[in-house]
């Protein structure tokens, strides 16, 4: 029995509440695209905004919570900052809810300038939305810096980044968790700073009427968005490196190649976001090529090293399969499949066709939903199970996994098919020319509902353990 950490339990609770609600919004959007619920069409874009930012926020916060929890074995984060992170995130979510539900703010999750200032929603809801991101951004910035501080108490920068492995030494031993988290946190500081600058310029527009350069804003915004989403995924991988070995009964250690691939990530992935600006002809052409090359270099080595490592870990081991280890394993697979879809889309030649089609939601839902969310929930289950050691029912659990897989991949498949059939993203209702999009949407909604059923059953399983663990911890 391993007592669960109180902060982690709060984060699990928040995720268990928010995640299914946001999934319901996803199903709602697919239903409207199917042509149903016509009376609620005007809510499509506010709900899309809430779903997008909500999911990205939950993914980031939950994966950060996992990493912090796993890191507690090695370092000691500040208690006060842990509470601040919780409080700030809840406050940000409340502001977001007000902006979307009362103000009908609907500019999409990355609030691309100047849309937030030009929509048909009241200016106060824009201010409220920007404030929500400000609160979240500031909170997460403090959280990240505090984690770096905690890591720095035990490791030097060169150790935390595994540079001694690069130099051929193996001592001191640094867990991949520490290495990958350090890389992610440094990137996190960069992306949140970009977010802060974009927010400041947005506020200057809403409140002071000072116009900004749209190209500059787009660069800042996508640096922020791309890096935030990617580093969340890296945090999910980091905890997988830590936990999967417990089930395999073998260590999964850092070495020269692991260190090399993650240092490459740190250097290169900050330039990969240029793939979001392929259609911006004003951007100098050389930057477009940098974007494509950086997208490849930042994803392929780390993916190959991680997947190869994971397969080697599991191959011929006495693997103990339960909900946690299965979720972590299929989460890795989802991350790789989605990464493949993303790689295709980051190729300029393909992007010319796929830009802003549903191919984009297809690939990012693959690694976020069937990748990161499964890693995170797998880790959460791992914590709750370790804290309670309730008996597990393997056949029942396999059914849960089956529901999640069939529902999740079915829904994704509909996204991919729509994308390949040139259905654009962000259309609430499909006009006659895109009528074939509606059928995919309907099937997508059905599959997503199946996923939701699996999720609810799973949450009942983890919920029982969470309540027990919570009683013991608090």
């Amino acid at each position, binding site marked *: 029995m391993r007592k669960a950490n109180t902060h982690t339990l709060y984060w699990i609770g928040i995720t268990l509440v928010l995640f299914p609600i946001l999934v319901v919004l996803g199903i709602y959007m697919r239903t409207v695209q199917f042509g149903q619920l016509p009376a609620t069409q005007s809510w499509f874009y506010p709900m899309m905004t809430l779903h997008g930012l909500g999911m990205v926020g939950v993914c980031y916060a939950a994966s950060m919570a996992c990493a912090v929890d796993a890191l507690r074995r090695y370092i000691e984060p500040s208690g006060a900052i842990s509470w601040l992170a919780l409080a700030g995130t809840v406050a940000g979510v409340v502001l977001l809810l007000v902006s979307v539900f009362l103000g009908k703010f609907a500019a999409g999750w990355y609030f691309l300038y100047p849309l937030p200032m030009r929509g048909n929603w009241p200016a106060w809801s824009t201010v409220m939305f920007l404030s929500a991101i400000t609160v979240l951004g500031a909170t997460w910035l403090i959280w990240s810096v505090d984690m770096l501080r905690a890591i*720095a*108490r*035990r490791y030097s*920068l060169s150790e935390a980044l595994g540079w001694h492995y690069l130099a051929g030494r193996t001592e001191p031993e640094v867990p991949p968790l520490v290495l990958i988290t350090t890389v992610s946190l440094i990137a996190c500081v960069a992306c949140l700073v970009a977010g802060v600058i974009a927010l400041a*310029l947005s506020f200057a527009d809403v409140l002071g009427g000072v116009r*900004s350069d749209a190209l500059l804003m787009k660069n800042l915004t996508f640096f922020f968005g791309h890096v935030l989403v990617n580093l969340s995924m890296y945090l999910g991988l980091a905890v997988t490196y830590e936990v999967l070995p417990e089930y395999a009964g073998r260590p999964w250690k850092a070495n020269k190649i692991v260190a090399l691939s993650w240092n490459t990530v740190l250097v290169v992935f900050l330039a990969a976001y240029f793939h979001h600006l392929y259609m911006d002809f004003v951007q100098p052409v050389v930057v477009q090529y940098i974007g494509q090359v950086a997208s490849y270099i930042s994803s392929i080595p780390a993916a190959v090293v991680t997947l190869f490592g994971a397969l080697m870990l599991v191959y011929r081991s006495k693997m103990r399969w339960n909900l946690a280890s299965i979720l972590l394993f299929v989460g890795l697979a989802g991350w790789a499949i989605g990464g493949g879809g993303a790689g295709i889309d980051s190729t300029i030649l393909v992007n010319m066709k796929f830009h802003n089609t549903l191919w984009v939601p297809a690939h990012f839902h693959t690694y976020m939903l069937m990748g990161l969310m499964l890693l995170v929930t797998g880790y959460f289950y791992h914590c709750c199970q370790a804290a309670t050691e309730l008996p597990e029912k393997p056949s029942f659990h396999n059914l849960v996994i089956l529901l999640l897989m069939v529902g999740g991949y079915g829904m994704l498949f509909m996204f991919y098919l729509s994308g390949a059939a040139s259905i654009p993203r962000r259309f609430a209702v499909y006009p006659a020319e895109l009528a074939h999009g509606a059928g995919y949407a309907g099937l997508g909604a059905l599959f997503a509902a199946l996923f939701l059923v699996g999720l609810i059953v799973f949450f009942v399983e983890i919920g029982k353990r969470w309540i027990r663990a919570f009683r013991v911890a608090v």
Partner: protein
Amino acid sequence: MRVIIVGLLATLACCGAELAQAADLQSSLRNEVRLVDRRLPDMPLRLGDGRVVQLSSLWRDTPLLVTFFYQRCTGTCIPSLRLIRDAVQQVGGLGRDYRVLALSFDDVDTVADMRLQADAMELASDPNWFFAVAAGKNVAQITSELDFGYWRDPSTGQYVHESLLVAVDQGRVIRALLGYPIPLSRFRELAWELRGSFVPYYEVPGERLLRCFEFNPRTGGFRPDWGLLLLLAQGVTAIAVALTVFNRPAR
């Protein structure tokens, strides 16, 4: 400290004045963009030298700049024509990259008035400048196609009207400049496009805060601007934070 506050206030005041002006420009800019891609109707024109030509023959070989005026105008028409003439002289390319048509919208103007106007501007012998009148219904058609409004004040006999210059390529509007006076730099940008070089980036009036790139309409050059530095800020900050946080003895 006080110096800084006074400085800040002064800057703010300047910004305010500039913003008000920028707002005007912004709205005219929006109206300009609306005109892009409109197609002009063809029509017979009677030129100052007595020839009768089709409008389409004027844009067959080079793009055509079209502006409206009337000869008796005591307001902006004549100064605006002079401004265009001077800008054309400074920017160059007349005849090779474009030609210019000044079309009267006043039905009392005659061919003789057109010749007078060309003479007065010392453009009568320039083969690339055209002063023309057209039939009333054709004038009504082309001005309404370009949303060009004019209204005759019966007490003075003068027209209340806007100032418009459109660049037309094969009958299609590729750019429009609204308002008087036209800034020379905007005219230069227009000239680059008429020359066939695509201008991907130019200053939108009032949006001068931190741009990524700068297009120099004099040289046609394209260079990075200060805003681009902002994109380095996040990386530099992250490195600085990492170095600061880790700058202590380990363990």
